[in-house]
């Protein structure tokens, strides 16, 4: 009689998840998912591989830049490449993304300028790109807040009668926030075209996912009236198919869908974090064996596609991207002092004008004083 789902599910037994490529790279067929992958030929598979290698390279390069003092901070996505590329590549240009801070791989799929990607992490600006240029909001730091933005955006899409969708990315920690749950309520109530994409990377800084929930996160959504999918987040094909299914529902008036992509944060929370304080080295090792890139390499190898040509081309692209990004980062002009006053409002504001005027006089005085020394 009791609808009891509290039975132990520790470790999120794999059988629960949809998997199209096994850890050793074997393609398993799936009645519902396969038809969403019919266009994934050798070229497209190679392109997905390239994307994943490139964003790992972006991630590594950014981590280096941080270690070298060129960036103030960086939130690595290491291990989450399949989740981000698989979903990011399912999107259409006119879809709109609301993400957290870790979805640099998704931003790459959206075509972000590499320098723009880093501006915020270098400390030059509070966010780096024009959301309307790539149809992706800049990183959201307040955990979960963006899920409501996506839901509201989707309400706008619905009002407009458009057939695009909104997608929002968030973590396993975020599902505990009131905002995320309210987003599910609103999305379900209005049946808006939004996809909730949760990357369960098993950690929220130092907190394991089991602290947030004793049941799989994907189970959360149906209780709000939102269908959910739980996929192997390290399987780029499973993620791609799931996201396409969800987007298709959204485009065709089917309302919201919740996807849990089960993956793993192989790096620290950010470059400021030290996971050895709280995380068992064995766990990391286990997950290293499920590395999403290695898996795709295995699949490509099985299919005879992992050619030296592909490898060389991908390596060249990654090198070029890394180089471009580094150069863009280091070449960023320093912000100007008076920039602090810009864009607080879109129309003039008397309080701020006065402060701007006073500070400008102050800087002049300071310069004079220094000049006269």
């Amino acid at each position, binding site marked *: 009689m009791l609808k009891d789902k509290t039975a132990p599910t520790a470790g999120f037994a794999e059988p629960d998840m949809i998997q199209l490529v096994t850890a050793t790279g074997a393609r398993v067929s799936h009645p519902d998912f396969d038809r969403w992958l019919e266009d994934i030929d050798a070229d497209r598979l190679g392109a997905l591989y390239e994307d994943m290698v490139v964003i790992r390279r972006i991630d590594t390069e950014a981590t280096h830049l941080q270690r070298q003092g060129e960036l103030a901070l960086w939130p690595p996505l290491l291990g989450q490449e399949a989740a981000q590329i698989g979903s990011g590549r399912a999107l259409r240009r006119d879809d*709109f993304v*609301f993400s957290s801070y870790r979805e640099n791989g998704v931003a790459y799929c959206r075509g972000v300028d590499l320098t723009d990607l880093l501006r915020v992490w270098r400390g030059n*600006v*509070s*966010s780096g790109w*024009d*959301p*309307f240029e790539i149809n992706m*909001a*800049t990183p959201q730091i*307040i955990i979960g*807040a963006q*899920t*409501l*933005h*996506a*839901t*509201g*955006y*989707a*309400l*706008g*899409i619905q*009002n*407009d009668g458009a057939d695009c969708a*909104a997608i929002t990315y968030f973590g396993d920690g975020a599902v505990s926030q*009131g*905002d995320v749950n*309210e*987003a599910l*309520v*609103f999305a379900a*109530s209005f049946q808006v075209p939004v996809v909730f994409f949760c990357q369960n990377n098993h950690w929220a800084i130092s907190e394991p996912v089991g602290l947030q929930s004793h049941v799989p996160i994907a189970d959360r959504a149906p209780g709000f009236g939102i269908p959910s999918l739980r996929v192997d987040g390290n399987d780029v094909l499973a993620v791609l198919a799931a996201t396409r299914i969800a987007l298709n529902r959204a485009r065709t008036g089917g309302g919201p869908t919740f996807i849990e992509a089960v993956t793993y944060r192989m790096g620290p929370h950010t470059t400021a974090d030290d996971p050895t304080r709280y995380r068992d080295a064995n766990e990391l090792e286990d997950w290293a064996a499920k590395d999403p890139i290695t898996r795709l390499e295995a699949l490509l190898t099985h299919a005879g596609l992992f050619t030296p040509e592909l490898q060389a081309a991908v390596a060249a692209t990654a090198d070029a991207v890394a180089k471009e990004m580094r150069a863009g980062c280091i070449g960023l002009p320093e912000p100007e002092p008076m920039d602090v006053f*810009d*864009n*607080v*409002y*879109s*129309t003039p*504001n*008397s*309080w*701020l004008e006065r402060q701007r005027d006073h500070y400008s006089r102050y800087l002049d005085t300071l310069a004079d004083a220094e000049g006269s020394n």
Partner: protein
Amino acid sequence: MSTMTFSRAINAGLRKAMDDDPKVLLMGEDIGKLGGVFRITDGLQKDFGARRVVDTPLAESAILGTAVGLAYRGYRPVCEIQFDGFIYPAFDQIVAQVAKLHYRTQGKVKMPITIRVPFGGGIGSPEHHSESPEAYFTHTSGLRVISVSNPQDAYSMIRQAIACDDPVLYFEPKRRYHTKGEVNENQDLAQMPSMESAQVVVPGTDVTLVTYGPLVQTAREAAMAAADEGISIEVIDLRSLAPLDFAPLEASVRRTGRLVITHEAAQSGGLGAEIAASITERCFSYLEAAPVRVTGFDIPYPASKLEKHHLPDLDRILDGVDRALGRPNSLSGLEG
């Protein structure tokens, strides 16, 4: 020109804004069929449909959070918070998102969101229904905060707020909803006085009395009462709480040398502190006495039978005026 109640004037302003711009939509709890618990949105869902007058599920953070998303999509959401005391669940979305997104994105993303808040006391309600939370928002960079005191302003300024590309908190003095006044509905936005401007509503020479929202009426009454005693009070209706329009305040205080500020919100850290501090900075040598604050006390809003002992009223304001003028008052004899 037509005569209408305060609440009707807001309704008319909302209607006009919706007529003028299909991107304007209203969101809130019970604003549809019911027309809101104060009937401010009465009839609007019927005329504009449920896509433009949206009854939302019961969650304030989501009302504001989805409004942010709608703004991204080019909409101009007008959110109703049912009562002042229910705005706090939305505080994070207001302070960390609505207020900051334009700055965060270097001006790329505009947030033309209007947040309507029936505020203040005097209606005999239980806890959380009579608060004056405006100072939380006037201290939040990126927001504009206005408050209206009469039907004409209620009408004009809701239209201005909605037309503004920045987020605006629009505080409605709920205890004045039923007062009536003349409203000119035939003004272009361009013809209206800026919503950022304060206005002298009673000219006077002896002391400057500054207030906003519900207490403007009380201040007018105080000025009348004082006139009987030969004291000439200049009453200024701030209208804009952030930014404050200091020019008319400065001009007035330079003439009168004396300033009284009154609001319902708690005194400590209230808007009165900013006004007193700023006017002291700007008019120090003209001041004949320290600015006087006549405000609610530093207490949670009390039970309704006691609210009259919390809210500034005519007598307390006049006592403050006496203090500013150095006339005998309740604190005479105390040093200060």
